[in-house]
């Protein structure tokens, strides 16, 4: 894991010096994850490809401004989140959840353990969650981002992320229970 982070940071540093091969490697490395994340936010596949392209062009344009190469994943997801939200806002599909009540955050490990055994089911159930819940859960499952990192990506407070993650895990847990009973 640490090695991954380090090699990523080296790639970012090379990109900052305009190394084309490093940029190619960075795209190859992050594209599948970014694609999966964006697919959970945007329905149309062509739109996803457009957002991906815009994201990478923005990365290329602004990578020199990134002070800490270790923060590249958060920065990358933040850019793609903003691009996706802009598109969804244009289509009036983006609804920011603000009326959620703050819940005590608890690590619902049972849900996570159950989810790990049933990837296919989790993938299906993710599609049935609300967009905001789906987003935090995708970020949590794919990258294992911390609350603060997710808050930076989505542009909301840490409390809101905690609350969303709690609800998302709770709903996933219920859905998994239901599916297992059937």
């Amino acid at each position: 894991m640490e090695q991954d982070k380090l090699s990523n940071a080296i790639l970012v540093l090379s990109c900052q010096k305009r190394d084309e091969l490093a940029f190619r490697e960075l795209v190859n490395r992050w594209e599948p994850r970014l694609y999966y994340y964006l697919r959970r936010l945007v329905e149309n596949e062509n739109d996803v490809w457009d957002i991906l392209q815009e994201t990478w062009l923005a990365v290329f344009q602004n990578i020199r401004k990134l002070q800490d190469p270790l923060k590249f994943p958060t920065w990358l997801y933040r850019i793609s989140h903003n691009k996706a939200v802009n598109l969804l806002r244009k289509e009036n599909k983006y609804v920011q959840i603000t009326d959620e009540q703050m819940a005590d955050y608890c690590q619902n490990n049972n849900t996570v353990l159950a989810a790990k055994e049933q990837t296919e089911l989790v993938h299906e159930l993710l599609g049935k969650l609300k967009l905001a819940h789906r987003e935090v859960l995708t970020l949590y499952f794919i990258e294992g981002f911390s609350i603060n990192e997710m808050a930076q990506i989505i542009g909301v407070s840490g409390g809101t992320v905690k609350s969303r993650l709690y609800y998302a895990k709770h709903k996933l847990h219920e859905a998994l229970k239901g599916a297992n009973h059937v």
Partner: protein
Amino acid sequence: MSEANSKKEFAENLLAQDPPSADKQQRYKEALLKKIEHRMCLQKAVIVAIYIVIFLAAFGAFMLREYTDNVVHSICWGAVSLHILLWFLIYFLRGIYMLTAGISEKNSGKDEKQRWKKQDRFITIVAILVFAYASTILYCSFFLNDPLKAAHLAASIFWATVFFLFWYPFGTASLLAKLWLEYKKMELNIPKSEEQNLKRQDK
């Protein structure tokens, strides 16, 4: 370790549920890399164009010195060509200084980084002000009638330029020396720790 591995495995399995189609991925990647290549070429072209324009401007000023009949103008055009070339050299030296500082900065603490940033900002602002002031003086000297006075004025502006011509190379040299010392320190520390490890193993 196993938890991290299982998390990674789970993420990979989840990604495998909705992989991008190979055909589209290939097409999109080619288009993206072409765009990036174009942008890179454009950036390089812009930089080369700026360099050429600066050199042409300096050379043009130098040629004007040859063709003018007015002695004051001849002196001033000569000073203009030198003024452009020297400030371009300062800009280039600043680039090298910043590059070295960027490498050395990574090992320093937050306070030191901020102090360095403040100092750099101050020097840059002073350099811009000096450049503007020198350019104004040079412009004014064109309207003088006495060639001796014009020569004195044109020569005086280079004192400030010389300061920056010294500042940046010396700054780069001191940063390089600092980096070299740190490297040497590291080199001296490595055998020590290795020695300690060997002693521990012997015990």
